């Protein structure tokens, strides 16, 4: 479904992604783990078109995304929950969800999806008229995920959904990620919390200073010596 082939991305003079290649197949949960500054967020930004690769290919369902505007990438079915949630704090929960459906014109479909989001995250329904800036961190994460789902994505990119959340909330968020996946949305998950990410993913890639150093089945990686030492605390 999504294929990155030998992608190089620069931030000015900094070579942030050094020829990474990865693949996400339809229906999978794939995770990209690695420490701070390894290039995880950069990878997602490149897929969403916020950053442009210097060379290499970003293919989605056979089409090259490299020269397509970010809004067109959303229209093609890729939606991102950015790092730090980035909800529109000056707007209500409903308005945030409506913005998630910005490109859609099917009013009844939008209504249905909003219902579905409220089913996944009942807290959002309770707070639908509240300014999203007044929500707690966990609620904001739910809103950011709900907002991304409102575009009816085929591929959902999640950037550090566990960041700054209490363990119980992290568990909840991850079980919802599984639920979203079970209902047919393919997921590419970026995480520092390797333990949680590997526990729900089918496959995983390990990123280290802009390069993919390991990849494979998530269960096998979780059991491997290198990953245990570097990312799972022993």
């Amino acid at each position, binding site marked *: 479904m999504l294929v990155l082939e030998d992608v190089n991305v620069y931030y000015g003079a900094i070579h942030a992604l050094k020829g990474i290649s990865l693949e996400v197949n339809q229906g999978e949960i794939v995770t990209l783990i690695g420490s701070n500054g390894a290039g995880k967020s950069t990878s997602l930004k490149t897929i969403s078109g916020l950053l442009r690769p210097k060379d290499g290919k970003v293919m989605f369902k056979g089409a090259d995304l490299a020269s397509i505007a970010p809004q067109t990438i959303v229209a093609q079915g890729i939606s991102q929950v950015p790092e730090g949630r980035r909800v*529109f*704090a000056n707007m209500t929960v409903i308005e945030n969800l409506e913005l998630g459906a910005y490109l859609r014109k099917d009013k009844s479909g939008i209504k249905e999806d909003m219902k579905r989001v409220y089913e996944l995250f009942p807290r959002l329904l309770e707070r639908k008229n509240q300014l999203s800036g007044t929500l707690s*961190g966990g609620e904001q994460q739910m809103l950011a995920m709900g907002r991304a789902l409102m575009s009816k994505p085929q591929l959902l990119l999640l950037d550090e959904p566990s960041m700054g959340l209490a363990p119980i909330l992290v568990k909840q968020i991850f079980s919802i990620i599984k639920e979203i996946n079970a209902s047919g949305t393919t997921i590419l998950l970026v995480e520092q919390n390797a333990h949680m990410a590997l526990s729900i993913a089918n496959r995983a890639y390990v990123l280290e200073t802009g390069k993919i150093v390991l990849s494979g089945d998530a269960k096998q990686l979780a059991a491997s010596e290198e990953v245990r030492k570097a990312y799972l605390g022993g």
Partner: protein
Amino acid sequence: MGNVTEQVLQQIVNGLSLGSIYALVALGYTMVYGIIKLINFAHGDVMMVGAYAGWFATTTLHLSFIPALLIAMVVSAILGVLIERIAYKPLRNATRIASLITAIGVSFFLEYGGMLVVSPQMRTYPPVFPDTIWNVGGIIIKYGDIVMILTSIILMILLHVIVKYSKIGKAMRAVSFDNEAALLMGINVNNTISATFAIGSALAAAAGVLMGVYFNTINPLMGIIPGLKAFVAAVLGGIGIIPGAMVGGFFLGLTESFVSGLGASTWRDAVAFLILILVLIIKPSGLFGKNIREKV
């Protein structure tokens, strides 16, 4: 005693008229600042172009007030979009000072280009309204006062509805809050910025036509002082905040009227800027400004 009350009420009427002009222009300043963090110093001159468009519509085309107002708003909206696309867009990732200097350049271009095209001489607006004057218990209310206040209130309500409920309004708020997150929603940021310039410029044009109608004369440099004052109004209310610009505009208009009413009209600009300084000292983010803390 009755005389004092009369005086006060009279200055309120004058202040609201003047304030409605400041408020309309301040809205454009604040909307543009909100979305691309640029003080668009050419904004007062866009108002001037609107005033001229209205003047041509009423003199050459013999149109009445409302069609002339609409034509002026359309002309300025197009001008605003062109200015943004040609002058500001290429600099969007440049330093702020580069955009600011460009804005000043655009301002000069419109002022002196305007002189070249329409000549520096003053033009007189034809009497579009009956010069009816009501004397309500000693308070003089001109037909123009009513039109000015009503027009600006209608436009502000319209703006509020657009910003609050329309799709483009929501996109504008999203882009002004977080440009990159807006891109991830599939919002076309460039079009949204253009729409912001169009709406802000149209409001400025309305202010220009109202000024022409109210004060009768227009000239190519007429945008400078009201432009600066409106900028003060926008900062007073908290730049980037729409209700702030409205309140700031009316507040400034009222203040100036009262200073003039006290017989100190030569001091009124000084008072306006003094208030700006005080606000900046006491509450630098403006009357309506607040800091939103990030939650983790």
